[in-house]
């Protein structure tokens, strides 16, 4: 789940969550995003790069401007992961314990 890991790291930073909220309903430039809070534009650009690499925002060129918008599919992947954190772990426990049990009894199925 490397993609999910990247996304989890991306949203661990509060400013990046703030940026995601801003571009959820609107397509904005880095400058417009920077004007919303107390972070320099280069810092915003760096955050956008991280969010883009995590698949959480899309970038589009419009002339000389780059515009950013949240990427719903990326957030949906994260949501799916979160909704069943323990369920996935317990499924893995089941798989491994059953494999071990078959090994003990010398079964092959």
């Amino acid at each position, binding site marked *: 789940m490397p993609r999910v890991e990247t996304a989890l790291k991306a949203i661990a930073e509060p400013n990046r969550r703030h940026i995601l909220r801003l571009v959820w309903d609107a397509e904005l430039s880095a400058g417009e995003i920077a004007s919303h809070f107390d972070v320099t534009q280069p810092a915003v650009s760096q955050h956008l790069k991280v969010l883009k690499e995590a698949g959480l925002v899309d970038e589009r060129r419009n002339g000389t401007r780059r515009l950013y918008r949240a990427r719903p599919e990326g957030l949906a992947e994260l949501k799916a992961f*979160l909704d069943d954190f323990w369920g996935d772990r317990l499924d893995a*426990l089941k*798989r491994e314990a059953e494999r071990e049990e078959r090994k003990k009894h010398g079964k092959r199925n």
Partner: protein
Amino acid sequence: MANATETTSVVREIAIDASPDTVWQFLVDPEKATRWMGQRATLDPRPGGVYNVEVIPGHIASGEFVELDPPRRLVQTWGWDAGEDGPRSVPPGSSTIEFELIPDGNGTIVRFTHRDLPDAAAAESHAHGWDHYFERLAIVAGGGDPGVDPWISGPMS
């Protein structure tokens, strides 16, 4: 209905086609624990014994074993060590997980409970749209468990 209790629990049950003894080993043996739980694990399975498991890279779960009744019941505290981005929303010792192993023929029913979770998700359940999920994302990004989604049973306005 949206509610505002202070903590939440996650309860799950799974049937495993392996004996309670086999399943138990996966809870207390570091080599076996890493096969389902994480990448690196140190476990000191006795009351008061400390454990650390790197569940996802950079996210280390840690706590203490509280109660061990092999192969029936295991209780341990659960939380996450502070990361490079600061303390987690579910710090070590702040919540509790419990595994109950119930014999079922040749197999085992595992009843898992994670309790005493901070209930940010439920507190935010009145929020609209993705704000709701941002709160949940923030909890897990902080290494926590978001708990049961209050929207599953609640009305969506």
